[in-house]
């Protein structure tokens, strides 16, 4: 069974698992736990196999034609360096979050419906990153978004419902803008295949079309990836959701749907002009500084982490907006690091919530003595996010700042450094109030997390520590392949069309 035939399994496995868990989860005890574990393990194996076999493929590209129809008539699934990089992040974090939620979701009712929605979200994300057709990208984007609206409202308390409604309205308006952009592009190029669209756009003069569609897509995908000023839904949605959902949303969804789509559409289809890149850089620097400042004043632990997410997405988009190879390398490396670090932070916050500590920093103190494992994981993740030397976050932020200064934007580099200092102070505030100090009377009887949650948190903390090793020449190739895909720009389309005809 060649590697090309494995490609649809990325969508089929989570979709099948979602429906089987929905059917049988209520009747057989423990069925949903075992099925979820097996599914996420299978996805991890698929993504690892795809990574290995991509190294041997000609041109580092695998194209699967659905139904045998050649593009531009049929939909094709294209797996290249960028897709396999992000799919490995989704599978890895999905596996650890699934193991964590087997223990955490005992406190909620209806665990089987949770896993159904969770795997629908993973199916949507996987589908969005492997597809080669722009309307297919829109459909998978909607699948993942609708599942995430329902997941945010999972607890059906006051705050969850309000946050989910706000998120759903803002996300649907974003999808309308994206659909309008797709309509204009189809009207101009009369094709929906991404590679074919790039080919047509290169010789047909569009005049004002490309900037107009670029603005529509920037609004739509900027809303999905929480760029300032489109960030308003993120603090509410990520702080009210259950902890594994927050980890998945903040760690993976805003990157797989938002940042990946910006990369794919602006670099490979429309062509990244300097005007667009400057606008992106300006908005991301505003994200970094304002996200850092706003996260300092929060007293809700998860809201603090959500505002810090906005800042870190600013770093990633700053690296992308630079457009140089070093900048995009730093941005993709920071995407990898931030997924691991932010997921670990949300999982530790969930562990405190599970033990009975609540979410408000003013109500908790001195937990370090009762929950040492959680404290150590949180300390590792906080230090990694703030950019302290041996952890991975330091290297990725350093590369982005060096790339900024190399291009001549010293002001933006200085703002990035200020953002790092603000992040450090916000997390030190969280650490001081939550963990250190004298233990409160209401918290005297709490115990540390169950072993399933400890396994996830420990494994993610280990990844935080060793992720700096991704810079070694043997491992660097995974990120370099992704950078090559982005840098090739619109000439990438001819490679895809030629590979599809084979």
């Amino acid at each position, binding site marked *: 069974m060649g590697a090309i035939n494995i490609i649809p399994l990325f969508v089929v496995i989570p979709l099948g698992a979602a429906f089987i868990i929905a059917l049988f989860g209520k009747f057989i005890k423990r069925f949903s736990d075992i099925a979820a574990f097996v599914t996420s393990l299978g996805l991890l194996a698929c993504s690892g196999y795809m990574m290995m076999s991509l190294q041997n493929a000609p041109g580092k590209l695998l194209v699967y034609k659905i139904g045998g129809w050649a593009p531009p008539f049929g939909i094709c699934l294209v797996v290249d360096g960028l897709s396999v990089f992000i799919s490995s992040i989704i599978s890895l974090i999905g596996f650890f979050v699934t193991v964590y939620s087997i223990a955490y979701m005992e406190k909620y009712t209806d665990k089987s419906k949770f896993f159904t929605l969770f795997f629908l979200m993973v199916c949507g994300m996987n589908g969005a990153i492997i597809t080669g057709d722009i309307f297919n990208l829109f459909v998978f984007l*909607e699948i993942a978004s*609708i599942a995430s*609206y329902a997941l945010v409202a999972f607890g059906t308390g006051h705050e969850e*419902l*309000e946050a989910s*409604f706000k998120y*759903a*309205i803002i996300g649907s308006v974003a999808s309308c803008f994206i659909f*309008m952009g797709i309509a204009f592009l189809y009207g101009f190029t009369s094709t929906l295949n991404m590679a074919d669209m790039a080919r047509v756009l290169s010789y047909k003069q569009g005049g004002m079309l490309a900037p107009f569609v670029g603005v529509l897509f920037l609004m739509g995908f900027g809303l999905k990836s929480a760029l300032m000023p489109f960030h308003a839904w993120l603090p509410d949605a990520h702080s009210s959701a259950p902890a594994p959902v927050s980890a998945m949303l903040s760690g993976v969804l805003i990157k797989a749907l938002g940042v990946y789509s910006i990369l794919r559409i602006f670099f490979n289809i429309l062509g990244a002009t300097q005007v667009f890149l400057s606008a992106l850089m300006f908005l991301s620097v505003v994200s970094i500084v304002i996200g850092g400042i706003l996260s300092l004043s929060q007293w809700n632990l998860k809201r603090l982490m959500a505002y810090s997410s906005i800042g870190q997405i600013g770093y990633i988009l700053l690296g992308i907006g630079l457009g140089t190879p070093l900048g995009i390398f730093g941005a993709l490396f920071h995407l990898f690091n931030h997924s691991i670090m932010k997921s670990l932070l949300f999982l530790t916050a969930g562990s405190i919530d599970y033990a009975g500590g609540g979410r408000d920093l003013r109500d908790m103190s001195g937990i370090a003595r009762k929950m040492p494992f959680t404290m150590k994981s949180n300390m590792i993740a906080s230090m990694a996010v703030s950019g302290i030397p041996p952890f991975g976050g330091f290297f990725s932020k350093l590369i982005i700042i060096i790339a900024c200064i190399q291009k001549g934007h010293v002001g933006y580099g200085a703002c990035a450094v200020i953002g790092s200092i603000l992040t450090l102070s916000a997390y030190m505030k969280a650490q001081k109030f939550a963990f250190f100090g004298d233990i409160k009377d209401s918290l005297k009887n709490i115990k540390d997390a169950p072993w399933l949650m400890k396994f996830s948190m420990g494994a993610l903390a280990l990844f935080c520590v060793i992720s700096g090793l991704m810079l070694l020449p043997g491992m660097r190739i995974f990120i370099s392949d992704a950078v090559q895909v982005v840098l090739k720009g619109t000439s990438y389309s001819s490679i895809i069309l030629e590979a599809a005809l084979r």
Partner: protein
Amino acid sequence: MGLYFLCIVLFCVGLYGVLRKRNIVKMIIGLAIMNYSISMFFVLLGYKFHGRAPIESQDQVITNMVDPLPQALVLTSIVIALAVMALLIAVAIRIYERYGTFDITKIKKLKG
């Protein structure tokens, strides 16, 4: 040309509904208007002059038909809009059970 412009005007009407109305149900209706206006715009893009409907029939030879691809895409998009609308209305009903009002200025527990 005027037809395309009218579709964009309808989109702006829907956007006004989402932005300025206080009642949650009116916001949902504004979102529905936005979705339908974009679907209509997309179908209009496929129109050809003197084209007929792209439906196969046994005895006729079809030389000019309108573009069928946007019609298929709009079918997909209507189903997606239906799913979002169903979820939003379910959330709105639960919000009414918890807060006792549909007024969005009174549903403000999350601040900061």
